[in-house]
């Protein structure tokens, strides 16, 4: 933050005050201007490149692919070549070694330039619930085996935690794991598994005893084709239709001890870690879309004339756009602050929940505003606003519903 907080203090006076404080040792050199809301030049360059890349490479036939629920493996591979999937992963595994803020900046750029929200959602699911927990909790052998492929696009990751009777109450899961010698045997059913129909690798959670709650859960990384693991029918859904979803069924699925992800009984910790990343980063693409929609609505409100003047001159239209602007700015601050907290290794549970809650609900509202501002045209598929609205609704549900985010925030407030 570089501008003075009060109108009656000049910038030169502030510099004088700071210099005086430094001389007296009240503040040190490296504590001047501790807040800066701008991306670094490198991050800006990356974001700009992401916008151009997404705009030129990811937007073909989205209307048709949305209607027919077609996942773009080609787009997936292009993203991997651009470095998307490997962005937060270390270079030794083929990643870019970027921190949370740089990764968020890139994802915002993809959401701004790209209109295939389903593909971006599929990549988010892959990164935050498969690659990231593998990086944190995987054994050296697991990392060596899977992370390069997860970075370069050869492997698609999926995550199975939710069950028919364990959604928001995730630790009441019933999928059981029993030990047989050194092997583990899993039985149960996971629902809402994003990428399941196309996944090569599954991070799945099971409990040794439902009575133990969170303490009974273990995480596993299981390859496609493992005997006893099968994916069910692809699920039809309202939005994000280019990201495919299905059930995963485990029937006496026997895996070796090397499939355990993290320690036995510590699966809840693995899951919590991946959710923290996901809540913090998954809506960065939505943030980019909100910015694009805002600019589109401003341009439209300036150009579209009714009753002899641009519609932006009508307060009822202008107010909607003002609200969109405010939502975008507040959403941006929440997401980047959460990224900053994670980069600083500070606790971000409540901030990630606030970002997830606010951005998702703002995204839905802004999508509806964008349609309303465009009138009847906004209702038409060809303008692609109706698809974005359908896509936005999922954001209030995945990675923990808005209700669960409010619970997390309330808990953080000790209520």
């Amino acid at each position, binding site marked *: 933050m570089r501008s003075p907080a009060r109108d009656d203090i000049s910038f030169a006076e502030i510099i004088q005050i700071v210099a005086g404080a430094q001389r007296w040792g009240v503040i040190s050199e490296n504590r001047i201007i501790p807040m800066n809301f701008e991306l670094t030049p490198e991050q800006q360059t990356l974001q700009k490149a992401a916008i151009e890349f997404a705009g030129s490479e990811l937007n073909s036939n989205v209307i048709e692919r949305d209607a027919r629920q077609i996942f773009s493996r080609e787009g997936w591979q292009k993203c991997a070549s651009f470095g998307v999937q490997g962005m937060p992963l270390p270079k030794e595994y083929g990643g870019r070694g970027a921190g949370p803020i740089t990764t968020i900046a890139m994802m915002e750029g993809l959401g701004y330039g790209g209109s295939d929200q389903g593909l971006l959602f599929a990549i988010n699911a892959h990164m935050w619930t498969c690659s990231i927990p593998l990086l944190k909790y995987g054994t050296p052998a697991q990392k060596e085996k899977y992370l390069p492929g997860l970075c370069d696009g050869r492997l698609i990751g999926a995550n199975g935690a939710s069950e028919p009777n364990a959604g928001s109450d995730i630790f009441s899961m019933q999928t059981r794991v029993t030990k047989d010698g050194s092997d583990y045997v899993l039985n149960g059913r996971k629902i809402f598994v994003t990428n399941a129909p196309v996944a090569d690798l599954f991070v799945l959670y099971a409990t*040794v005893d439902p009575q*133990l*709650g*969170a*303490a009974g859960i273990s995480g596993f990384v299981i390859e496609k084709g493992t005997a006893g693991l099968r994916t069910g029918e692809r699920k039809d859904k309202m939005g994000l239709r280019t990201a495919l979803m299905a059930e995963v069924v485990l029937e006496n699925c026997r895996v070796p001890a090397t499939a355990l992800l993290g320690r036995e*009984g*510590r699966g*809840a*910790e693995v899951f*919590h870690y991946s959710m923290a990343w996901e809540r913090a980063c998954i809506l960065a693409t939505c943030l980019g879309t909100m910015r694009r929609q805002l600019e589109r609505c401003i341009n439209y409100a300036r150009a579209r004339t009714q009753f002899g003047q641009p519609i932006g001159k009508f307060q009822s239209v202008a107010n909607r756009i003002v609200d969109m602007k405010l939502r975008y700015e507040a959403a941006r601050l929440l997401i980047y602050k959460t990224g900053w907290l994670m980069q600083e290794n500070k606790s971000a549970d409540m901030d990630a929940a606030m970002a997830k809650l606010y951005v998702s609900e703002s995204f839905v509202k802004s999508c509806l505003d964008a349609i309303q501002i465009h009138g009847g045209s906004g209702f038409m598929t060809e303008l692609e606003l109706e698809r974005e609205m359908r896509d936005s609704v999922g954001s209030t549900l995945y990675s923990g519903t808005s209700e669960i985010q409010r619970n997390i925030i309330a808990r953080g407030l000790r209520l």
Partner: protein
Amino acid sequence: MDEPEIKAAVKTYILNEYLPGEDPAALTDTTELMTTGILDSIAVLKVVTFLESHFGITLEPHEAVVENLNTLSAIARLVMSKKA
């Protein structure tokens, strides 16, 4: 490390992580942590991770239960038994 030192270390951790701004005197050796909701299921796992890393012990899933983790006194007893 004796029992009072263990309690002090755990108390500092819980105050910092889960009760920021709380009067330290309000967190006594017998304050119920799990049954009153100060520690939820995820917080319990984080406390377990803290205990393992700070005291160099290993806890099994069946040990992360209310009997062992509901008060500072119970936690201290658990840590002492593990280090014995």
